């Protein structure tokens, strides 16, 4: 599903050019659950942003489902993103002014799903993450675990083929964290590909495969199954 070869990414300031990612090669198959690990600043979040088409790559090739997307314009990327990729962030990134229901509904609004259909699908996914009873609450009224469940619901409501999770349990206590990991595992078992950045060895165990990075390079790949 994802095939990245010889990826180079630089960050430039006026004087210094820093290599963020150096000659990274990654291959993720459809239905796989991959964890990316490494110390802070090793480039794992940058990699995830590039995989999610939120950031450009400077050199190299990126095949998404066999299509070269490295040189895609913003319009195409946006289109590809909204139909294929769901995001889960460490800090949830819910919109404060919108209710739980409206937050989850948003991706469907942007893909022009009719209102009745939206309602059905949002309710279905809220049931699945067991947050239906708080559908009219605002994000600030929820606990961290609940907020992240909403974020997961929002990521999957469009039935994306790929979910990108950036330290999804980073802001959660262990029991809430476990809940979210189980949710992701269930989704993976249902066929969704997942790429997750994490610091936690515990969370990494939920993945099929762990990619370890250091200083912008992939140094090791281990299979957990």
């Amino acid at each position, binding site marked *: 599903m994802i095939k990245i070869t010889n990826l180079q990414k630089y960050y430039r300031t006026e004087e210094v050019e820093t290599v963020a990612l150096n000659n990274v090669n990654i291959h993720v198959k459809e239905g796989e659950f991959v964890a990316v690990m490494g110390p802070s600043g090793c480039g794992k979040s940058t990699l995830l942003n590039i995989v999610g088409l939120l950031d450009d790559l400077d050199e190299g090739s990126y095949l998404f489902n066999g299509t070269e997307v490295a040189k895609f314009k913003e319009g195409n990327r946006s289109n590809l993103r909204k139909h294929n990729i769901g995001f889960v962030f460490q800090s949830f990134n819910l919109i404060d002014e919108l209710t739980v229901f409206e937050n989850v509904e*948003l991706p469907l609004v*942007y893909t022009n799903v009719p209102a009745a259909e939206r309602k059905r699908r949002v309710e279905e996914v809220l049931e699945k993450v067991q947050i239906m009873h708080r559908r009219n609450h605002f994000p600030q009224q929820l606990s961290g675990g609940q907020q992240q469940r909403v974020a997961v619901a929002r990521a999957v409501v469009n039935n994306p083929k790929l979910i990108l999770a950036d330290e999804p349990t980073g802001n959660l206590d262990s029991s809430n964290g476990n809940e979210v990991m189980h949710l992701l595992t269930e989704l993976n078992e249902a066929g969704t590909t997942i790429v997750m950045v994490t610091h936690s060895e515990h969370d990494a165990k939920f993945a099929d495969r762990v990619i370890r990075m250091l200083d912008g390079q992939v140094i090791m790949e281990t299979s957990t199954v």
Partner: protein
Amino acid sequence: MIKNYLKFAFRNLWKSKGYATINILGLAVGLTSFLIILLYLNHELSYDRWSPELEKVFKVSLRDADNDISSNTQAPLAALLQEKTPQIEAATKISTDVTFEVPLAAGENVISQAGTISADSLFFKVFPYKIVEGDARTPLHKPNAMVISEHIAAKLFGTENPIGKTIKVFNSFECEVTAVIERPEGPSHLDIELVYRSPYEKNNYHWGNWSYYTYIKIKNPLPTDVVETTIDQIYYTERVMKDKTLSYHEFRKSGKQEGLFVDAVHDIHNFPKHGTSNMTTLSILLLLATLLLFAGAVNFSNLSIASSLRRAKEVGVKKVLGSSRARLFWQFMGEIAMQCLIALAISMLLLHIALPYFNQEFQVSLNIFGNQFSWNLLLQIILCLFAVTLLSGLYPAFFLSRYNTAKVLKGDYSSGKQGLALRNTLIVVQFVVAAFFIIGIAVVNRQLNYMQHFDRGFSGEQVLSIRALLMKTREDDFDKVKNELLRIPGVTSVAKSTKVPGDQFADTATMNFKHEGESYRLGSVKVSKDYFETLRIALIDGRYFNDSQADQSTRSAIINETAAHKLGLQQAGGKYIAYPNCDSIPIEVVGIVKDFNVLGLEQQIQPAVFTIGNQACMFQSGGAILVKLNGPDVQKSVAAIEELWKSIEPGFPIRYAFLDENFQQLFASHLRLQRIVAFFGTTAIAIAMIGLFALTAFLIGRRTKEISIRKILGANTSELSLLLGKDFIRLIAIAVLIALPLGWWAANEWLQNFAYRIPLNAWLFAMAACSVMVIATFTIGINIIKVSRANIAENLRDE
């Protein structure tokens, strides 16, 4: 520490160059317009303040039994008041209009000079002009004495000593220069260059002569109303009281108004008890300028907050490191004060550029650093800067220093919706003002355009209007003058008229003409035979004037369309009219001409009767001689006319104007209004745009993260634009809805000044509304595009 603050301040300014530039420029523009008006206000309020002695000088005016106000008073009034009032130190009477240009001759040197007055010997006892040469004690004592300004002395005598020299006035009598005065350092309602004793003083000295302005100077300062009651009582006793039974107080109690009233001289220019002054206009301008400055400062404050979002972290870190809130507050205040100071410096530069235009427009000579510099002005500017700094700085400084440390360091910069309603209101107000001005600009421009292209019914093209000073030239010698003028190559026709198209003070009086036993109020204009042909005025019926005896001796008249309508005449010929009280001389209406506009478009065309000569009961003179030129070299013809004039009116410099230019003069005040509206309108629009920009930058800036999330979830630019723009567009729409009726009302009021005016079409307002929306959309669009193009990954990288 201060050095550190300054360093920080400059770095921060540099880091947000864009914001800072808009910030400072916006404020500078507001400050400039405010300072201009402030200077102008200072100038206006300095009228007749050039000597402390003027505190004791009052102008005396009259209210007659019909409650009519007259500032012209009787010749002996000044002497009467001085004689009967112990509190009066001196009283003087002066005559003539200071704006009238009087011919003055010193030998061969002839000039036309405004600011020339005649006065009695006590003039300089009342007015404290400084005499720099000659007789300082009794300058106007001699019956033919004359006092001139240094300026006139230089003009007429160069470097020679003028004392004892003679100057011929009106080419008829000579005066001897006894003293030279210095022009006062400040404006005065009486702009005097020359004062002389009139040789006709004695003959004119009687209570029937109402040609004088009376001024008194009291010994010790007293309130105006005390002065007024004192002299009014004397006037009542000496002049009004016919029925000896009523005392002064009983007379006043009975509600009768007749009597004297006074104006302190320093109030005459700005706050006269009767008549008009610039103060209303000035107050409106001041209000507008204050609004603009206020808007500028508010924008500044909004922009500061908008740009401060990025500094939240600095605040958080500084607080963690032990900086107190107060210290942070003062740091931000200092930064803002510095920006205000830069804005002031820029506004000084703008002022330097703008003042010459303003001076030309308002006929003043304002400047800020030249001779008009005063500590008072400097104090005002410093106060103004202080107020602006407080206004622009207080809120942002509070806002910034209040950031919650823990929240900020975690990446939460939002601080709720405090003050949002206030800021929204300010934006609405700014756009109401901007939309109002856009409507104003549209209406004024269209009306002026309409006026310029209005068919006046006559052609003033290449018609020269010459002011003859001597009546002989206009009356007895007219035919001779006409023939001499016609001999000049390029002159095709010559005529005269007592009512010259485009004259500012054209005679608009009407009188009761008789026609078939009925009275009709019509205007009377004396012309010469070729008047209508010279101005190419079209004939509707009958004929133009000819050389017949009847025409030449006021037995025939031509009337205009409006008059014909009023008299119910369809055709010329066989119908008669007569001047008031002159039924014995019937005048035949021999022609009807098409209406033509001589007074500008403010007034309806008056019904008019044109006749030749003064044989029929009514004497009219004045006006001008009209010369139609039509040759290859107009300048040469004009030069020849100038040369000829020296023999027609020797000793009087020729004064002429082209009729078209004359007519254009009538528009001068409207053209000035057009430029003022355009200036304030542009400034208001600019400031409103800056304000909207600041607010959108701030509010959209706070939503950067939300926007990124929405983009990740698939929102495209147009969806984001709609999301972000709709709230602002709603605000602007509200502003437009408020401005439309206001603008309609103001435009309608203004258009009432014109008898001939444009209709207030809906499309004019629709267009204005559309332009406001376009301007607003553009301003908001800049921010939306900026934020929706930003790098998403960057915006979410606070984790």
